[in-house]
């Protein structure tokens, strides 16, 4: 249990560091990245992969710097659309998944919606906090409310969008 919490906590930090970084911090962070990339070219490449990507189904994924794992969750937009989340069916640990699979489900206001994964692999962690506090998905869908961590196999399938592209996409819909 302790180990799982630690992993969960680590994962949370990973996601929230990208999302919650206040705008004013960006210059200094960027400088740090630049310095790092000058020393380690490879690292800068993977750092670019790390940005959150969004699907048309309103999930997000964020790949780890080494590209071996990713965190998956549902977007701010989706969480707002769904209303009060009362239950989340989390994927089972070690479950083998393929891109396009439903790996869980969200229930809010009498509505069931599937959580789809755009990438295949194996589920290596799940956000146990959501079992006790499903409302975390409403409070912080792109940070504390992450759903699962996946050991990635292969490339993502389907259309993936950057934050800007996704925002434009949701405004269009």
């Amino acid at each position, binding site marked *: 249990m302790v180990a799982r919490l630690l992993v969960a906590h680590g994962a949370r930090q990973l996601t929230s560091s990208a999302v919650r970084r206040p705008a004013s911090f960006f210059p200094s962070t960027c400088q740090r990245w630049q310095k790092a990339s000058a020393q380690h070219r490879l690292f800068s490449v993977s750092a670019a992969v790390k940005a959150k990507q969004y699907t048309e*189904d309103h999930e997000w994924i964020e790949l780890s710097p080494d590209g071996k794992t990713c965190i998956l969750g549902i977007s701010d937009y989706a969480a707002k659309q769904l209303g009060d989340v009362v*239950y989340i*069916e989390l994927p089972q640990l070690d479950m083998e998944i393929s891109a396009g699979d439903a790996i869980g489900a969200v*229930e809010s*206001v*009498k*509505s*069931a*919606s599937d959580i*789809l994964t755009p990438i295949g692999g194996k589920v290596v962690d799940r956000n146990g906090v959501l079992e006790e506090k499903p409302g975390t998905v409403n409070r912080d869908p792109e940070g504390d409310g992450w759903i699962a961590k996946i050991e990635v196999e292969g490339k993502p399938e389907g259309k993936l969008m950057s934050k800007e592209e996704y925002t434009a996409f949701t405004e269009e819909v």
Partner: protein
Amino acid sequence: MAPSRGLYHVQHTSHRLIEGGRNMALARRAFTSFSEKVANPANRVQSYISRSNNPYLNLSIEDHILRTSPPDSAILFLYTNRPCVVIGRNQNPWLEVNLGILNAAKSGRAKDTEPPAIGNVDLVRRRSGGGTVFHDEGNVNWSITSPRAEFTRDKHAEMVVRALRKLGIARARVNERHDIVLDQGHVKRDCDSQDTHRTPYTIDDGAGPRPLKVSGSAYKLTRGRALHHGTTLLASPNLHIIPQYLHSPAKPFLKAKGVESFSSPVGNIGLRDEIFQKYLQEEFAAMYGAGGKQPTVEIVGEEYLNIPEIRRGYEELRTADWMFSQTPQFTLTNYPTNESASSNSHINQTLTTPVARFHMTIHHGVIKDCEIDGPQSSKDTHDRIRTQLLDRKLQDIQNWSDLLAHDGQAAHPEVTMIARWLAEIMPTPQLPKPDCIY
């Protein structure tokens, strides 16, 4: 089935076979064209009605429509099921349903309270969210699949209210839970007749008789599509016994994650099926049809099980895994625990028989943790029972007494009491046997 015997029939057997084959081929063409019709982008407004009363089939046809209909289409599907209890996707059947009386007629089991004599009642877990409902022949279900972008949780309930009001049901309105109720106020007040959320008989909470629920809503959302389905109690002959089906004897002892039902007093609207269906189809056409033009209403039925996707969905709904293993984690405890002392304070009153303390945690329908402790039975006995139960699927347990007995010998009286108590509150209902309609 067998034709009456006689030379005449024998002589015509081959002819009959050919005829039968031709009919089958025609039927197959009809349901192949159903799949094509549903998915055809040109069919932006579609309307279907089922002549089957099989809840598993109707839910699977509905799911097929949700998965395959064009992104910008709106589809109405009407059906009536034989008596069944339908739980929401993330609900717990042991908590929501009085499982022991579902097969009452079949098994001939009579308890201290006489089970209702309406025969076998199916147990169904649907794919949409929400709470548990009872269906029978006096209940018409409507289902509307439409684009998710323009979808709101009230819009189709409002549509049904408009149809009901045209049929003279002036007390019908949509409530804050997206359900349809009939107001029970005695005094008529001025009210905007176009307002589907208020009637002349609406009264404030607690200021008079509670409105009666006549229709419940549930939803399933996918990428671009939203399915909204609802029940409509028109003339159920079973209103007085519905509560018996929806009160589980295990409830005081269970603590469950997932979705719990919200219980409401229910009533019948008092309309005939055909007239309600007709007005609903018209209202649907007024809402979605080009110039209010009604689409042709197609009839669907049992032969649609020959469509492989529908068959797959149908088989899945009927598995024990979908019915029971899909249940969110829960615990069963026969004593108040620190954690749940306040919510379980009524346990002491409810529980009179077992002396031993018993606790188990069930995840995905499997007993993951189990503790038993009695003042008179030995630790060996406790350990043995624990081993006996761990990792067992709750739905596979048909006989608690046999399971907890010791190598065929009578168990310790404390254990026997626990077994009897478990059999009483956690019975396993018979699931439908694999059928062979085709």
